[in-house]
């Protein structure tokens, strides 16, 4: 039977394995035929959305892993915008609004709020946090 999951990622791309574990859980649930409502990046989880991470080419790139998953399975990746802004994680729109000449979040990630998390939890069968 198909179930719906919402995934919350609180851990950064580097430092703990939370993000890799979350990605692998998300991949496994898609492989089992379930649906992902969205992946919500909160607290230090927003560090998974920067395009400025440049890991060594022979190293697993978890940020790329999330982007590929989103592209292949049409999964929406949502950042908590206030968690992001206070950590220097900025999309083009926020850069323009705040007079910054640089930004590090491209279109794979949407800037959202806790509202998206709450409505996502309402429509999902399970919330899984990492």
């Amino acid at each position, binding site marked *: 039977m198909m179930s719906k999951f919402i995934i919350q990622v609180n851990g950064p791309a580097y430092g*703990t394995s939370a993000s890799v*574990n979350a990605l*692998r859980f998300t991949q496994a649930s898609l492989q*089992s035929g379930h649906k992902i409502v969205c992946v919500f990046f909160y607290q230090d989880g927003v560090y998974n959305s920067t395009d400025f991470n440049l890991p060594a080419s022979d190293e697993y790139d978890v940020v790329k892993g999330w982007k590929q998953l989103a592209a292949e399975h049409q999964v929406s990746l949502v950042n908590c915008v206030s968690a992001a802004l206070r950590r220097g994680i900025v999309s083009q729109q926020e850069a323009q609004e705040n007079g910054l000449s640089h930004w590090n979040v491209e279109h794979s990630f949407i800037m959202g709020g806790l509202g998206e998390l709450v409505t996502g939890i309402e429509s999902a069968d*399970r*919330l899984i946090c990492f």
Partner: protein
Amino acid sequence: MILHHIQTSPSRDNALKLCLRYACKEDAILLSSDGVNALLLRQWAMALSPFKVMVLKDDVIARGLTERLKNISQIDYSEFVAQSLQHDKVITW
């Protein structure tokens, strides 16, 4: 029936301690990442013994603990997905 998910070592924070305070006997506990380290310490292994305990297989392998934890139920990600649906909810502490 709750699946309690612990990702951190009890030497690092109070996640496991808090979980054990509130867990009911029909609940299950999944240890992942550094959470698997809890089973290396006798006091925590004893505290976990009344519960159904699972460890995430790849995190056990990554830490070289396969032999040491061979008596604990080791699950892969697809089983993790299945367990999360068999339980009413998953709480990550």
